[in-house]
């Protein structure tokens, strides 16, 4: 079984009929990088949250399974599930400013998890944090450990969150649009950093993004989502050579590409939208729930 296996996962807001995720299945092998691609509202972040056990209270699992390293997460008692997830998985969040507590210094924000969840002693946790800050190319890590988030640039804060995600040597990291708020030159540095760390540590990565350009640079496989449904699941090379689903093709044609100004940034045709919506309705029609 792959390191992460999501099977037939359906979510909904408690008390509402339409599903947020529609029987989603995907897998990420050990050390693999898979992209979750889709437009806002497609449910890509929700998949990440379901895997990490941090779904909003108003959302319930209707059906499906999440297997992490051979263990059926959704069948476990909540405390045991938290321990497994805390030890084996981590998140790189989207917005580095809101993800860090503005009133606390950086150091304890990195070491908290190691000390309180994994039971490390403080000295060991601190030396680990220093080593990681160095690995994410932060100069003067000792000073940064004592700094508050507002004293650091956006790129620095994102590096800190990356260091923090790798702190407990997780086997899986969910990266939720980690570079969306950054400009292209900083984005490139951060993506190469994540990719390099992922390769060195052999971590599996589930990379949530809406940018197919980014996908082609850091991922090996991708799942394309529309309205909580996986419409295409393919290796990256095959996908960019010939996307199979009409919606995937339209998404690729809408993606900016300065080397092809006439062939890119093409609005998604209404016929394609109608067809994919009909497909979602058909899936809902035959669904037993």
């Amino acid at each position, binding site marked *: 079984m792959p390191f992460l296996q999501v099977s037939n996962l359906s979510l909904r807001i408690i008390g509402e009929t339409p599903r947020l995720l529609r029987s989603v299945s995907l897998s990420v092998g050990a050390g693999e990088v898979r992209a979750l691609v889709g*437009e*806002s509202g497609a449910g890509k972040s929700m998949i990440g949250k379901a895997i990490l056990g941090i779904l909003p209270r108003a959302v319930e699992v209707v059906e499906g399974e999440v297997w992490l390293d051979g263990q059926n997460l959704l069948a476990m008692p909540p405390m045991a599930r938290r321990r497994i997830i805390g030890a084996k998985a981590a998140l790189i969040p989207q917005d580095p400013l809101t993800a860090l507590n503005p009133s606390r210094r950086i150091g304890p924000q990195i070491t908290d998890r190691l000390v309180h969840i994994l039971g490390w002693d403080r000295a060991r946790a601190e030396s680990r944090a220093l080593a990681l800050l160095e690995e994410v190319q932060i100069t003067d890590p000792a000073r940064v450990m004592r700094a508050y988030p507002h004293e650091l640039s*956006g790129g620095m804060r994102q590096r800190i969150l990356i260091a923090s995600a790798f702190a407990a040597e997780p086997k899986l990291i969910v990266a939720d649009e980690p570079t969306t708020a*950054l*400009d*292209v*030159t*900083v*984005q*490139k540095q951060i*993506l190469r950093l994540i990719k390099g760390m992922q390769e060195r540590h052999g971590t599996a990565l589930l990379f949530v993004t*809406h*940018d*197919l*350009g*980014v*996908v*082609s*640079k850091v991922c090996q496989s991708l799942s394309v989502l529309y309205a909580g449904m996986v419409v295409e699941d393919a290796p*990256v*090379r095959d996908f*960019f050579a010939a996307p199979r689903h009409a919606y995937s093709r*339209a*998404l*690729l044609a*809408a*993606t*900016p*590409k*300065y*080397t092809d*100004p006439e062939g*890119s*940034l*093409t*609005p*998604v045709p209404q016929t394609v939208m109608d067809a994919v919506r009909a497909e979602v309705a058909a899936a809902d029609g035959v669904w037993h729930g």
Partner: protein
Amino acid sequence: MADLYTVQNLRLSLADMTAKPLFGAAPRIEILRDLSFSLPKGEVAGIVGGSGSGKSTLGRALVRLLEPSGGSIRFDGTDITHLDDAALRPLRRRFQMIFQDPMSSLNPRHTVGRLIGSPLALHGFEGIQGRVGRALDHVGLPRGFAARYPHELSGGQRQRVGIARAIAMEPEFILADEIVSGLDVSSQAQVLALLEGLVRELGLTLAFISHDLSVIRRLCRRVIVLHRGEIVEDRATAELFANPQAEYTRDLLAAIPLPDPDQVWA
């Protein structure tokens, strides 16, 4: 063709509130350092740069939301560099702005009709309801949307309202500040296609601020590249992409991840 904007030796500095001592004045930081360029009528110019390059500050100076600290800005022959609010008011109709984040630039308590209509009323337009309707037609939204509130719209629709509000004033110049960077690729493509059509149809002069050179290439005939408050390159779009001169422009181009696994991106 005559120049709509002539900018000469423009300088702008702002107070650095992060370094302000408890008592006394904050030190000033130079944001724009000696910029000179002109925009002919009908020009569609891209202003590109990384975060902190001064591109939004430049835009805000052009529509005089900020007052320059040196140099001059002439709009259609009038020196607007240090005009006060009262003197600017009649000119404001003629240069409009579309903001980056429609959620924070559209008042959530006002309907779309009021959002588009009240600036028209302030500037003494007649037949406001008809004008609001025509503005909505222009941006491809049903007229019934005039009764809706911003939270009832999608991101792309909200940005269309921002565009409708700007063009309803029948301006000569529009400044668009990162108006598609918060949108999904499919809405991004739609909003760009819309803007492209409107500029042509209405004969607008447009300054389009973006950090994304791919978007600029599609829309703009000319590109001004800003880096640390200075213009490092100002050329026709085709020339810039064929043969970027400034090192910073080359870095910017090389950093763009193209949707192509074979692109060399090291």
